[in-house]
Structures are given as C-alpha cells and as structure tokens.
C-alpha cells in the first residue's frame, strides 16, 4: 500500500491522526497533515483505509494493496 496526502486540501481536522498515529501526524504550527510512513505495514492498512473514507477534505489517497 502506498499512501499520499494532499497538503493543500487538508483542513487539519486530525481524524487521520486519531485513527493511525503511526502513519499520520500534524504540523505543530498549522495543524496540516504530515505523512510519517508512506508505505505502512499490513497492520495499519485498515486504519489507513478508514482515514481515507472519513477525511473531510478527501486529502488522503492510497494506491495498490501491496
């Protein structure tokens, strides 16, 4: 699984950080998403997919299932 985030779209609601703190973080100064791990391990895949579906700005994308 490859994860991508679009900083320009992110509105900093932090839903992704609550769901998968190993994969996503937020910048301290403006709260915008920071991708910690662009190729997260299997154990994180479900949480990442949920983050994709709840992100209010549709700013998270995943390609492939590997």
């Amino acid at each position, binding site marked *: 699984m490859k994860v991508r985030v679009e900083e320009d779209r992110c*509105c*900093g*609601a*932090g*839903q992704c*950080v*609550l*769901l998968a*703190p190993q994969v996503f*973080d*937020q*910048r*301290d*100064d*403006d*709260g*915008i998403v920071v991708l910690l791990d662009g190729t997260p391990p299997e154990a994180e895949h479900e949480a990442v997919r*949920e983050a994709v*579906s*709840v992100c*209010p*700005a*549709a700013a998270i994308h995943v390609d492939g299932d590997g």
Partner: protein
Amino acid sequence: MPAEQSPALPIARTCPYAPRDEHVRLRETDPVSKVTLPTGAEVWVVTRHEDIRALLADTRFSSDRRRPGFPMLDNGSGAPTDVLPPLLLTMDPPEHGPARRAVLGEFTVKRMNKLKPRIQEIVDEHIDRMLAGPRPVDLVRALSLPVPSLVISELLGVPYDDHAFFQSRSASLVSRTVSQEEKQKALFDLAGYLDELLRAKEEVPTDDLLGRQILRQREVNGAVDRKDLMGLAFLLLIAGHETTANMISLTMLQLVRDPGAREALRQDPGTTLPAVEELLRYFTIAEQALARVAVEDVELGGRLIKAGDGVLALAHTANRDPRVFPDPDTFDVGRGARNHLAFGYGHHQCLGQNLARLELQIVIDTLLRKIPDIRPAVPVDELSFKDDAIIYGIYEFPVTW
C-alpha cells in the same frame, strides 16, 4: 405565487431519539427537495449522507450569513451573535483557508492531549462538588455547562481568578430564563473583559492560545488585530460551549436508557471513544448549524439548485441513512462509525472536534467511576428538550444517586 409554494416542512424535533418522520420520508423518496420552512422561507433540504457530503465539500455553496437567500433559522433562542465581525464559521474560500490555518495548530491531536490533565481536574472538581452537595441536582448546571466553558477559559488563557466571571457570563448567553437585555449585558461584559485580557497579553504574551496568536500575528502581519482575536475568542465560546454541554447531558440520558452500554463502558474505559462517536451520530445536535446558500447554479443529487437558493443539510436524518449505517436507528455503543456528519464535513468541519471528543470521554469515564449509580430524579419523558433550538439538548436534567 402561492400556487407554486413548495410543501411545508417542520424542522423542530418531536422525539429526542429519532429524526422526524417527514424528514425520513424525504430521504427515501425525494432526497434533495424544495420545501417551505415554518419561517416562510423556501429552501432546499438534503437528507442523504452522500448528498450532504457533496454539499458541504462544494465551495460553490457559501457559509456567509449576509448573503441574500441564506436560510435563517434563528428563533431568538440562540446567543446574540449578530454583533460580531465575520468569523471563521461564516467565511468562504479563499479567505477561510488561511484564517483556519492560523488557529489549526491550537487544535491538533497533540495539543489536545496536552490539555487532558487540566480537563480531568476540572471534571473531577465539579463531580466532587456534586457529591458533596444536596440531591437531586441539575446536571446541566452542575456539570454540563460549567465544564466546557472552563475548558475554553483554560484554552484561551483566562486567568484562574477570572474563571467564575467568565463562566457566569457565558452561562447567561445560553440561558433560556435570562432576558434579551441581560444577554446583551453579558455579551458586553465579556467583550470588555476580553479586550482587557488581550491588552494585557499584548504587553506580556502568555503561553496559551490567545498569547500565541498575538505572537503569530506580530510575526506574520507585523501588528496585532485585537478585534480579530476578540472574534476568535467569541467564536470558540459560542461554538464550543453549548454544543459540548448538550452532548454531556444527552450522553447521560442515553446511558440511563441503555444500562447494557453503561455497564460495558464502566468495565472497560477503552470502549469510551467509539461510544462517543455513536453518541455524536445518534443525537446529531448541531444539524441546524449546517446551512448554506448557492453562489452559482449547482446540480446536487440530480436536482438543479439555483444561485441564491438556500440549502439545509438535515444531518440527523442523514446520520440514520441505511445506505451507510446498517440498522441505523439502533444505538449501538460498539458501532464506532466515524463517518457521521455530527461535526459537518468539508473545509468547515468542526475545528474543536478533538477537544469535544476528549471532554466527552473524560466526563463519561469519570462520572461512571465516581457516581456509578447516578440516575434521573424525574421520569425521563418529563424532561424539557430543546426541540426548537439551533443546537439540540436538554434544558434541565435533575439527577440523583
């Protein structure tokens, strides 16, 4: 032309636990539909989850209350907010994004977790005071209202000695029994107070939200815009006080109705966060805040919404959309679905959501631990619900143990 008038649609709730039948019927038969509100205004109402997401993510719909056609629902029950400068909540892109990013850093998950010990102290103090006082006691006054207002004082950097003042004036703003004049007075008192507070923080910047905003504005703009920061302080108070308070009261109500859920939560505090999501979904208290006006013609759910048309997102009904939530009308404490619309969706999605989650989590865990046998002191169907208010909730909730 009366012949062309759209069908009337009441908005006020009739049952604390379910959306109105008329709204549910629209969701199933006419999900983007033009109706006439009790105020006489013609607006579109949107009732399906998918369509509301599309609406709230679409920047061709404006949040600017001053635009003609914006659906006004206020029936005088809310706080007098019309005297304030344009706030984040009512801004559109491109102004909205930079204004939101300027404060987002104050609401990150990390920052909220730092507030945790102080929130715990505030909650402990109020529950201990309940335990030491007479029974029955009104939960709304003893816990639901003071906790979120003190948390906001803490966040803003209101000194401890002024907390009581801040709390009493913010309580007046949201009270049903206080006259309009008294509300204006409370607003005026708070504005004067915040002006002094900001002046002091401009001289000696403190390590809190307002202090850091002052430093940030100096760095970015070279000067401090005190009116802007006053607007921000008011927005956080207005958006974060009564909302969280109402959710605290409704949470207690639901845990009384569902002893199984309550026992599960008491035994395993690890299940509280998913329960909070379900409570948010089940009550969807801020539905009436989700209004927009189209700035150009937009097709939504197969209907053409014309520029200038008002739109209302009936999120309570959409949060019971069976296309998204299996068995949607059942309160399932373990459901943990996070894709609900209780905090909205898109670029305006609630800025304070992670603070609200944290407050609710701490209140539930602490209350169930300290007063495990808390129960209503009157039959729950005799409680007075805020059927017609912009933010749904309970006016008074006598409890005992």
